[in-house]
């Protein structure tokens, strides 16, 4: 499981995360909601070790992310999908997917390639495996990004606003794949602005506000009038999102 205890993170004088406590059990789908600047993406970047935390502790299956020796193990257990895809532009879709399995997990190249093709096939990109990122649409790129993360067979999938850079049509094609993944028992931590989608796939909703964890409730309770909606900030956020 992923355990976050009293996490604090500041950029200079700006406190971004202010004492976050959160645990995520294997198999759970947890959506993290909150307005822009509430610290959602930073939280993900702390879990995968891209940001150094100022205080507190994050462990992934008991491997401490702040310990350089344990970070490698922690990272093997989690896969990240990025908002801006972050694909390697000089590698084909397939090579994007197989690079880490071959280099980090020391998988046999031919095997990794076979699995990579199967993964791309499963997201409808079987015929685009040899295309470079520049030749793919945004939605296709993000699907490659998802395959790249899945190729490492992560226990935890960290999704950082994966549809924010996509238009509605492409958003739909990516969300469809994510919905499919939840059906297969993948643990997902899903930072998003897609409230309706979060509601449809999540077991739990976590609401961040100004770097604090304001609400952590089962999905149904969160959207209930006497549950999360009873919190003024949550109600305000949800009504604003509905208008958009």
């Amino acid at each position, binding site marked *: 499981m992923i355990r976050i205890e009293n996490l604090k993170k500041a950029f200079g004088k700006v406190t971004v995360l202010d004492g976050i406590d959160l645990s995520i059990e294997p198999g759970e789908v947890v959506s993290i909601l909150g307005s822009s600047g509430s610290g959602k993406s930073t939280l993900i970047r702390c879990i995968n070790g891209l940001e150094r935390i100022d205080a507190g502790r994050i462990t992934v299956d008991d491997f401490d992310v702040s310990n350089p020796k344990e970070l490698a193990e922690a990272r093997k257990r989690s896969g990240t999908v990025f908002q801006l895809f972050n*694909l390697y532009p000089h590698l084909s879709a397939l090579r994007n997917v197989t690079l880490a399995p071959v280099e980090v997990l020391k998988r046999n190249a031919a095997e990794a390639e076979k699995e990579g093709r199967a993964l791309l096939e499963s997201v409808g990109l079987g015929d685009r495996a040899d295309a470079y990122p520049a030749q793919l649409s945004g939605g296709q790129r993000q699907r490659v990004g998802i395959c790249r993360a899945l190729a490492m067979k992560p226990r935890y999938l960290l999704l950082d606003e994966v549809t924010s850079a996509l238009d509605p049509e492409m958003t739909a094609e990516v969300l469809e794949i994510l919905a499919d993944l939840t059906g297969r028992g993948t643990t997902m931590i899903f930072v998003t602005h897609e409230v309706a989608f979060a509601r449809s796939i999540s077991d739990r909703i976590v609401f961040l506000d100004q770097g604090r964890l304001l609400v952590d409730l089962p999905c149904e309770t969160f959207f209930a009038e006497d549950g999360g909606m009873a919190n003024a900030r949550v109600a305000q956020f949800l009504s604003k999102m509905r208008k958009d």
Partner: protein
Amino acid sequence: MRYADFGPHDIVLLLNGLGVSLTLFLTTSLVGVVLGALLAVVRYYRVLVARELVTFVTEMLKNSPVLVQLFLVFFGIPALFKIDVTPFEAAFFTLALNTAAFVYVIVVSAVESIDREQIEAGRVFGLTRWQVLRHVIAPQAVAFATGPLTALLVNQLQVTSLISVIGVVDLTKVGDILNMRTLKPFIVWTVVGVLYYLAAKIIALAGGFVERRLTAHSAWKGL
């Protein structure tokens, strides 16, 4: 021998001179590119004192005339350390180090041109700093650097002509000799100039070819 017209043997002389120029150019370029790239890797790994030292030395090499550097190596260093340095050795060291300094700057900026996001992606998936350098940064940095490197090498070929001053019999020196003998400067220097031009053109064409190969992945940007 009286002052005389050109003879068939002059072609051999010119080709010998060209050979010396090209040999110096190719060897110093090879050493310079390898050394410059290695220094850039030192910077990538943030080796503390080495980084400051490299910056200082490359700054000195970039911002002083090659001719002055050549005089320092050929006259200055032998005088200080009481050692013998042949003109060819002096020319080799000076040009190799000078090329390395410029290559260093090109490679550093090429490495810095790679998006941070890709490097983060590599790190997140567990690639080590070295693996990120080898599989993510280097292939793209090489493609990015090929253009500026080609321009640098074309320029360094012309710079080799300076070594004739300390007595290396390169193409320029051969031109000088022929000019003294025939007293036909216009013809001599035109021929020498054309030979430099042809050599430079070949370097530029080769560089362009390599660059197109390396950037093939971005050729469809508009799609």
